[in-house]
């Protein structure tokens, strides 16, 4: 069971966590600009096949944490390690679905997905074949030849999803991957993600604003406080049985109990965030 | 003897100028071909650039000003003239219409704005010389490089210059339109004598010493071709000359061209030989104005190799 592994994570001789942020704090600015301490020293570990969701008020530092885990931002203090090795430079083991559009505007949807494989040395024809399959999986088979600017917001996000998933990275960093999708498509994508995760046991770090989604998908839901100097203020293990049906699990009474507990914690935080100020 | 090197690269700074008429004649009349040569003529934006081409090794022979050989000797570059093309500089100093009446003697050049082809060029030097004879220095006038022939005409017509020191055909054009009054004229024997006290070599054919040693027959052949052109010019009428040069050279006005040819005709060398007094007077003038040459000790015999011209006089009919 997933949950067991999670509990074991600090046991001696256990495998090192896939992602470990140890006392990581992150500050923006410096030089001529004022320093903004976005994240206070924070520790977050994601075990090898664990699915962790992060929720928190807007602007608290969720994307910042993901960037640190991806190696795009250097922490001001603390250390990031990936499968036990300290992270130097980019995190080559991670696939990152950015919050913003990150598709290459000069490539079609198909090319955008195929390139993710071609980079790793897969032959172009093979990569295209797989890319086509993946576009089908995210419901965009018919849009393969469109350039990003010819796609709707939700379509672009799904191309990005295919681009990340096709590589089967060991670690998945996802920043509001289903944000611009309607509820139904969201569930379909959620199911897809869970299937993949179950198949090859990735470590997933998943940012979302949809608490229900977080509970339905994750093993653990982490709550961040509002910034500046955001911290992790809650860490809930979701002990709903696997495999889960993303649309059915919401009917489970345990789901409601969890939802209520997390929501109440979160709400207080958001109310604070609303009046939040940078240092 | 057949030339060792059939393909000759010849450089000139402003081929269409009357200053270099013998070259155009030799080319058009096929005098080089007669000598078994295949001459490729490259035209440069000025004599300095063609000399640089020679030194850099991209040219074999150059038609240019004699004074270049002196300068090069002073700089340790063994460049030698082999044939004189022009015996008078052909440079004319004219005073603009507006100042013509008040001009009495070269003393009056003091304070004037004088157009020259380029700063430091022979047109500039000549005015310097003129001023020096009157006890003035180059600082007593201001010199403006006016560059191309068109700019020179424009500058005079717009009244931006008080005087101009230039060559044909600019002079004939300005003279005919009445924009200038000629005050010093080195196109003629008298004018040149009056200024320099003798002839004063202008355009010459010059080559590197190495080239002479290596390809004497080629040098001879080029000399022969140009010598023949000089002889031809002596006999030809301005009309004949105008009929020989490319149509574009006629300044869009045949009569003007013929006038300019007529005015320049005395400048072309008759013997192809540079007189010793001419060499000396040129060197003295340079010494006077060029600080770099002041201390130099050039053996003038190194600047001109008369063998080829002499030989040409024998063989060319």
């Amino acid at each position, binding site marked *: 069971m997933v949950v067991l592994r999670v509990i074991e994570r600090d046991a001696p001789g256990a495998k090192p966590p896939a992602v470990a942020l140890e006392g990581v704090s992150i500050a923006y600015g410096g030089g001529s600009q004022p320093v903004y301490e976005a994240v206070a020293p924070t520790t977050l570990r994601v075990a090898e096949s664990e699915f962790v969701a992060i929720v928190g008020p807007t602007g608290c530092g969720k994307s910042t944490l993901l960037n640190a885990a991806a190696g795009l931002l250097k922490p001001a203090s603390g250390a990031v390690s990936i499968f036990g090795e300290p992270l130097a430079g*980019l995190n080559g083991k991670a696939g990152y679905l950015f919050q913003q559009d990150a598709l290459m505007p000069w490539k079609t949807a198909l090319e955008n997905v195929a*390139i993710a494989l071609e980079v790793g040395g897969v032959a172009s024809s093979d990569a295209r074949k797989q890319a086509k399959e993946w576009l089908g999986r995210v419901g965009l088979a018919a849009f393969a030849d469109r350039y990003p600017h010819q796609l709707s917001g939700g379509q672009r996000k799904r191309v990005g999803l295919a681009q990340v998933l096709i590589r089967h990275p060991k670690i998945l960093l996802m920043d509001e991957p289903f944000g611009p999708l309607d509820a139904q498509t969201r569930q379909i994508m959620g199911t897809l993600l869970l299937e993949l995760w179950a198949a090859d046991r990735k470590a997933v770090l998943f940012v979302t604003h949809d608490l229900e989604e977080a509970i339905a998908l994750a093993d653990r839901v982490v709550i961040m406080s509002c910034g500046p100097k955001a911290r992790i203020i809650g860490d809930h293990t979701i002990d709903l049985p696997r495999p889960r049906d993303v649309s059915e699990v919401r009917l489970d009474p345990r789901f409601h109990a969890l939802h209520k507990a997390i929501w109440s914690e979160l709400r207080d935080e958001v109310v604070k965030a609303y009046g939040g100020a940078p240092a | 003897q057949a030339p060792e090197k059939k393909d000759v690269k010849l450089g000139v700074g402003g081929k269409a100028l009357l200053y270099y008429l013998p070259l155009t004649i030799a080319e058009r009349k096929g005098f080089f071909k007669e000598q078994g040569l295949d001459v490729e003529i490259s035209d440069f934006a000025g004599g300095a650039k063609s000399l*640089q*081409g020679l030194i850099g090794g991209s040219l074999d022979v150059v038609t240019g000003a004699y004074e270049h050989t002196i300068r090069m000797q002073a700089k340790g570059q063994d460049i030698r003239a082999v044939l004189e093309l022009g015996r008078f500089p052909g440079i004319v100093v004219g005073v603009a219409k507006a100042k013509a009446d008040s001009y009495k003697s070269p003393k009056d050049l003091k304070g004037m704005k004088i157009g020259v082809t380029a700063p430091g060029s022979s047109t500039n030097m000549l005015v310097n010389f003129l001023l020096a004879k009157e006890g003035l220095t180059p600082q007593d006038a201001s010199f403006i490089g006016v560059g191309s022939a068109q700019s020179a005409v424009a500058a005079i017509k717009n009244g931006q210059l008080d005087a101009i020191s230039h060559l044909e055909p600019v002079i004939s054009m300005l003279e005919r339109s009445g924009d200038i009054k000629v005050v010093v004229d080195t196109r003629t024997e008298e004018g040149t004598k009056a200024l320099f006290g003798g002839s004063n070599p202008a355009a010459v054919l010059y080559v590197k010493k190495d080239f002479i040693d290596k390809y004497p027959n080629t040098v001879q052949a080029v000399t022969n071709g140009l010598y023949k052109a000089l002889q031809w010019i002596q006999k030809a009428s301005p009309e004949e000359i105008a009929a020989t040069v490319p149509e574009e050279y006629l300044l869009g006005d045949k009569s003007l061209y013929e006038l300019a040819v007529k005015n320049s005709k005395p400048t072309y060398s008759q013997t192809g030989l540079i007189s010793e007094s001419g060499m000396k007077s040129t060197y003295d003038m340079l010494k006077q104005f060029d600080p770099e040459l002041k201390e130099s000790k050039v053996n003038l015999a190194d600047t001109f190799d008369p063998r080829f011209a002499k030989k040409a006089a024998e063989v060319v009919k």
Partner: protein
Amino acid sequence: MSRPKLLAWQVLVAAIVLLIWHIGSTVPIGGTYLLPKFFFSTPGEVIARIWKLFAGGQIWKHLSITLSETVLAFLIGSVGGVLFGFWFARKPTVAAVFDPYVKMANALPRVVLAPIFMLWLGLGIWSKVALGVTLVFFIVFFNVYQGVKEVSSVVLANARLMGMNERQLFRHVYWPSALSWMFSSLHTSVGFALVGAVVGEYLGSAAGLGYLIHEAEGVFDVTGVFAGMVILAAFVLFIDWLVTLIENRLLVWRPQPASQA
């Protein structure tokens, strides 16, 4: 605007310019000519001269020489500009160290460099190509350098996290992203490549359009000068058209500019 209508407008503009030129050079206004014939020739004469040049057949030799110089200068200069632009943009240290020297080099008057090129490259086309290259190179270089720095940081981060190496980043991110910068510079530099070639010829050569113009200038043959310039200009349109063709092929992915409502 439809093509025929556009063409009609363009022809109209040309006609107006020619008319002004014609009137300015042949009809005296208040006693003086606006565009004295001595400096501007007249359109009729220039057209007649162009006709004669082509009819005579001599021009083709000169044209082909100038064309090859221009194309070579353009290609070498822009490839060099692109390579150095990328290199500098990707190696900030190199860029910082060489920055002042590149700028100094860009400020050297090309006219003065001509003898040196002639020394190194001889009198043939290569010294003219070199002159064109020194113009094209800097224009392309500065634009590509900036173009690479303007790459969207998210797209770049995404590509790097995909595991792209430098070569792949170049091919899939920097290159396409910098293309519109590059093409902008290419449109400028087409003209400059030609200018370089012609100035090179002008300063010293045995053939080419610049040679013709120089020769004509020396004998006050303004008609010849203008005929040469008109031929030059027609010429550059042709090369620019080729550049635009390639540009349109390479930039298909771009959104069409919104038709302004």
